[in-house]
């Protein structure tokens, strides 16, 4: 029987990764770095790897398990579209149970930890991230057999976290928590279907210095996302501000004869938001709660 999402201690994993990051934050002050010929950032990956995975082996460039799509040069560092593509279907026998999305050189490199199940149908996920400086973006897939598989891309972009992301911050604040589900159909029972969840939220990094008050705007972002279909988890995630303003996720779920998609989002102010969408075979639709 497959794990349920409730069993995965992802919050702990995320904290561990953040602790690894904090430990490494002092590195830029060390003399060895000052002597470096270029301003290239410290390679944080060994610390990150150690914090998240210890000495477990990680297979790289294993396209049969996972691939990562990302632009080599991003058009807008605050909105960099990325796609995680699974090389295998989600079956009870073999499936991807966790996807770690890492942005090495971001202030908080663990952008998201996604948890999936056989009911996810397919472990493909598209989202949008902020990129603070030239960086490797990585996805590490953990299969249900415990093996780890990594794909990575180098992305040239800068300023996505400390930069003003919002085109209209006043409106973003007003609309926080509004959500929209969308299912591109027609939906067929037993065939993985594509769904998209858009969350209106500033997802503020807390790294933008207000020059007038000399205070940083408080971090305010979505930290937990759970999507269920017919009551069973298909996607959940611990995320942070490396995910762009208005977090947006395209993912799969395995429709049965009849069921409802339900999404629940919790942000850093502990506000809960929820939306639902009834899905029937042959159905195409979208839901925007008021």
């Amino acid at each position, binding site marked *: 029987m497959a794990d349920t999402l409730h069993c995965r201690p992802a919050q702990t994993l995320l904290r561990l990764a953040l602790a690894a990051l904090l430990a490494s934050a002092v590195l830029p002050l060390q003399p060895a770095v000052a002597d470096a010929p270029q301003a290239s950032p410290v390679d944080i990956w060994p610390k990150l790897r150690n914090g998240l995975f210890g000495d477990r082996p990680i297979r790289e460039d294993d396209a049969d398990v996972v691939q990562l*799509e990302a*632009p080599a040069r991003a*058009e*807008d560092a605050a*909105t960099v*579209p*990325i*796609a995680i593509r699974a090389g295998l279907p989600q079956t009870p026998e073999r499936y991807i149970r966790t996807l770690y999305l890492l942005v090495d050189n971001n202030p908080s490199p663990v952008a998201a930890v996604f948890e999936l199940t056989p009911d996810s149908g397919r472990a493909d996920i*598209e989202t*949008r991230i902020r990129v603070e400086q030239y960086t490797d973006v990585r996805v590490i897939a953990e299969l249900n057999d415990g093996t780890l598989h990594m794909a990575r891309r180098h992305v040239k972009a800068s*300023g996505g976290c*400390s*930069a*003003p992301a*919002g*085109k*209209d*911050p*006043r*409106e973003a604040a007003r609309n926080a928590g509004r959500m*929209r589900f*969308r299912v*591109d159909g027609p939906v067929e029972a037993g065939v993985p279907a*594509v769904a998209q969840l*858009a969350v*209106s939220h500033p997802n503020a990094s807390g790294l*933008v*210095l*207000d*020059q*007038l*008050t000399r205070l940083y*705007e408080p971090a305010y972002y979505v930290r937990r996302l759970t999507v269920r279909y017919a009551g069973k988890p298909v996607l959940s995630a611990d995320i942070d501000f490396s995910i762009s303003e*208005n977090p*947006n996720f*395209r993912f799969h779920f395995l429709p049965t004869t009849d069921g409802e998609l339900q999404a629940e989002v919790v942000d850093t102010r502990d506000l809960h938001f929820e939306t639902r969408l009834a899905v029937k075979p042959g159905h195409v639709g979208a839901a*925007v709660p008021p």
Partner: protein
Amino acid sequence: MRPVDVRTAAGRAGMLVGLFAAVSAFAAVADDWPLESPADGVFVHLGAQALASPDNGGDIANLGFVIGERCVAVIDSGGSASIGRALRAAIRARTDKPVCYLIHTHVHPDHAFGDPAFAADHPVVVSHAAYPAALARRRDHYRHGIDDSLGALGAGSDSAVPSLLIDTRQTLDLGGRRLRLDAWPTAHTDHDLTVLDERTGTLFTGDLLFVDRVPIVDGKVLGWLAVIDELLALKPARVVPGHGPLNRPPAAAFAAERAYLASLVRDCRAALRDGVSLADAVERLDGGEQRSRWQLFDDYHRRNVTTVYTELEWEP
């Protein structure tokens, strides 16, 4: 002869500026610095249609000033303190009236970061009511960007904190000459301000109008399309765009811009309707026939697709 006398004489004599160049380095610099006068008392410096670089010193936006009976209003100070100083020298070559207003059309670094050149004039600094928040969020980022793109040429660049905020509309009096200022809802940015010289019907649009250079959406495309209608309703005799030449009739200039923005809306709506993801939309929406109509198209179009797609995906 004291320099101030030279500048005053040159300002009054206009065409005589060149004659004084030999004796006044100040006037010579100002004279070398290209300036057009599309209407009486209205002056515009045209920036290069290029990305900011050491080659152009960041001088890529159109800047202007209007001379009244009492004083001078500056409309955008440029992409660096150095450009701001060149603009100030150009003003001083034409008039000795004080600079009483420094008006920001918006906070972008190619327009608003020459302000330190005017500090000694103590002008009233005028902006859209949302400008201070935008400046607070963006100032560090833009100053780093100026450092990166211009190096030493960008030294000392900064934007002044406004002392007069415009919520909707206000008129400034330069002495026998009124400027109508309009603060707009989110369009090119969330703090666009336009300046209409009522005497000559000259409308300084800031970046609400791009001519020849591809428009950049840093606000809301639907808001921008709506504001274009309102700007045309002001019936300007001529327009000074944020970028590009002055020789286009207002209706034609706005029509070209509207066509591009409308094509972004149409293409992104179609992509959203068909379930095309953002990554695929950025790849596929190449602008079609618009592509050959604009300079720097490949530098900004994909970014515009990103912005417009993420705006429109929230449409009902």
